[in-house]
């Protein structure tokens, strides 16, 4: 056990000269690293893997009084009642489409934003703009929903004041099914654009400056450099992020939909999680809620595995 930094430093220089001790040093270092990893592994084991046995309540009639193990088995009954619901396909469609549009429009924007930021001269300006665009990320969903309701109100909102001022007819944005996905995605892009760009900005700053200098000498313009140096430089990050996001395709944030929807927009807004909330948890229907959640996870797993397979075939990138 070396206690001071000075000793460690001298140990290392000494070790470098004698191969046997160096190997032992590395081993010790490896052991230390695993020690650091231990809490994370424990966390996943205790909080994510052990509770998984609880999903068996999806196949049981769970009663808290009997407990998870003693509740009676019912097989796929809860799944079947969900599949038989007249709203099953609508829920599936809405859940998929809301996430799909969020991804389609929400994913490229932070990349473009990061590329543009990268072109800005001067560190100060760049960091000011970056900080400003982070701010919406820290605004709670409840407040965002409140803002939308206030701004978009047909009688008192400023958006409709502009619409009618320009001679248009006031639109009840939040009570028209056709507008829901647009508003959901747009407010999401506004909220997450700056925050989502951080990882790309970091990736861009890691690109070797010599590459740009070489391109300059070859006479490449800004767009050329962006296309041939910046983008390929962050391509691994982009693909990883894309795959991770695809894995979340079937998980729509419950809270935001719940705050923004109403019975007039169920048609386009009602997603699996809100349906379960309305019908399950409120009346302690834990088994039904678990069955629907498990179904959702299975769909996600299939999607993620599929996209990963495609990505591996088509490019050299994959999650595993």
């Amino acid at each position, binding site marked *: 056990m070396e206690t001071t930094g000075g000793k460690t430093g001298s140990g290392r220089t000494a070790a470098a000269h004698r191969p046997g001790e160096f190997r032992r040093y590395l081993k010790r270092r490896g052991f230390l690293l695993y020690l650091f990893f231990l809490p994370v592994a424990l966390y996943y084991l205790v909080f994510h893997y052990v509770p998984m046995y609880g999903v068996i309540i999806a196949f049981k*009639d769970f*009663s*808290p*009084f*009997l*407990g998870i193990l003693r509740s009676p088995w019912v097989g796929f009954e809860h799944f079947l*009642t969900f599949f038989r*619901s*007249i*709203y099953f396909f609508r829920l599936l469609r809405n859940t998929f489409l809301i996430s799909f549009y969020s991804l389609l429009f929400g994913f490229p924007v932070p990349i473009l934003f990061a590329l543009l930021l990268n072109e800005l001269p001067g560190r100060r300006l760049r960091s000011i703009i970056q900080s400003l665009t982070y701010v919406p990320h820290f605004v709670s969903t409840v407040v965002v929903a*409140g803002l939308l*309701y*206030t701004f978009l*109100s*047909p*009688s008192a909102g400023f958006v409709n004041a502009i619409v009618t001022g320009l001679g248009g007819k006031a639109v*009840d944005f*939040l*009570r028209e099914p056709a507008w829901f996905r647009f508003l959901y995605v747009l407010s999401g892009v506004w909220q997450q654009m700056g925050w989502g760009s951080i990882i790309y900005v970091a990736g861009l700053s890691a690109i070797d400056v010599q590459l740009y200098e070489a391109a300059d000498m070859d006479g490449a313009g800004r767009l050329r450099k962006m296309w041939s140096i910046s983008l390929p430089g962050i391509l691994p990050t982009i693909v990883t992020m894309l795959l991770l996001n695809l894995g979340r395709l079937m998980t729509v944030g419950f809270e935001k939909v719940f705050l923004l*929807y*109403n*019975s*007039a927009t*169920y*048609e386009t807004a*009602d997603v699996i999680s809100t*349906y379960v909330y*309305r*019908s399950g*948890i*409120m*009346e*302690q*229907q834990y088994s*039904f809620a678990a069955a629907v959640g498990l179904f959702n996870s299975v769909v996600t797993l299939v999607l993620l595995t599929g996209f990963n397979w495609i990505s591996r075939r088509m490019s050299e990138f994959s999650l595993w």
Partner: protein
Amino acid sequence: MRGKSALRIPAVILILLGCAALAAATGKQEDKTAVKGEPIHITGWANWAPGPVKDSPTFGNLYMFQVAREKFNITIDWTEATGSTAEVTTQLGLLVASGKMPDLIERIMTTQIGQDYGRQGAFIALEDLIARNAPVLSAQMKANPAYRGQTVAPDGHIYFFPRLLEDLPRNFNGFHIRQDWLDKLGLAMPQTMDELYAAFKAFRDKDPNGNGKADEIPWSSNPYPLAWAFGIGCRGSNNVTDFFVEDGRVKFGPLDPRYRDAMTLLAKWYSEKLIDNEYLGLKASAFDTKVLQDQVDACYGSYAGYLTKYNKLFLQDRKSGLFVGLPAPAGPAGIRSNLGIHMELDPACGAAITVQSKQAAAITRMMDYFYSDEGRRVLYFGKEGEHYTMQGGKPVYTDKVAKHETLAIAQYLNTYVGYISQWPSIVPGDHQLSLYDKEGKEALYTAAKTAGNRKIPILQFTTAEVKETQTLSRDLNTYIDEWLDGFIRGTKPLGDYDAFLDGLKKLNAERYTALHQTAYERYLKATGM
């Protein structure tokens, strides 16, 4: 009108007090024998959180438990559970499943859960204990069949001490209208839907707020309570189902032909802008703004949370602007109906004694005390001289309680005196009245007279029935939500009404109704009718 009601109420209270006093007198002999006995220590589990003040006592140090200690020699060691209702419900499930239960469970979360756990063997069946040790509760159950009918489980046992309500507190929720604007436009208080229609049109066109703009919204808040005048059941404020009771049977609102008439009327009012076109998804803060900007003429809500609150705010800023209670308007058949009231039983409360307790008789005696007039005084008013004083034969809260700098009356009582929000008792009218301003008190009396008796009682289902109703209600609730708002807002034409009915049949609304009818028949049997 006002004079009449003012005369009637003391009489009602006197009769109620008389009943309670009589019952309390018989209960007292039992008390004395209890005090002589050994000190009793029991454990309890309660859903209670300390008040938002620095010196909030623990649950066991509330004034009511000091009295229980003196009178019954019972000391309770409480475990307090806090969190959202769903979280505490889960905690209760885990507690029951653990097999290590305390003697007393203060809140069974819902009466359905209470009797479920009772039938599964976690809680003691109380009917014999109540008959022997709870003279006040026994007498009350005998005198009020509705108290008994809603408390008895499908197997005929009683598994929890119910939280019951007197008539006045039941009518906490109702219709409001701006009296100053009725006066300004020379209109009498509307009594029927036709008169309400005329008044609403006048509100819309005659600029009662006098700002020169046509910004008045005759009816804001959810319009569903207006459908009740047709005699049917329809979801709405404090009314989650579409069921109603008529001619001794349970009926399902959407399957009733009058539902169509109600939808036709609401659609008309909506299209004529008599109903707020932004009622759907209206946030409470947006509604507050509309009310305080003098735009709302009438609405539905609780007399404490709406009427009294807004009147106080009005009077802070200016001299005018007063809501009064609007009697439930009579519909085309002359029916007045308010389905947003509470039933005689609070379905979210109730206390149970677990099978592991050895002190069931002593606990029952203590529980009974808080149903008695004396016990209710302790629970809802505290200690004479400290928390209340008698003025003209009625208890009035002292400034310590009524004018606390941060806590409202109910909060103060929950924090220091008695757990009025949940403890099994009979919610007394004189306490409820203390929460209102003058207009609120009058509104309560008016509401009590015009509520009708169409609201379906709290029904207790068997486990199999619960499962079936839950499965059926999942799609039905979404379906009715969509059509109901669609009809009112005109996005679903009334010409499609038959398609709506077909859908209801496909979703088995008839079976859903039959299940409720079965439970209702059990209720009738339990009331002894």
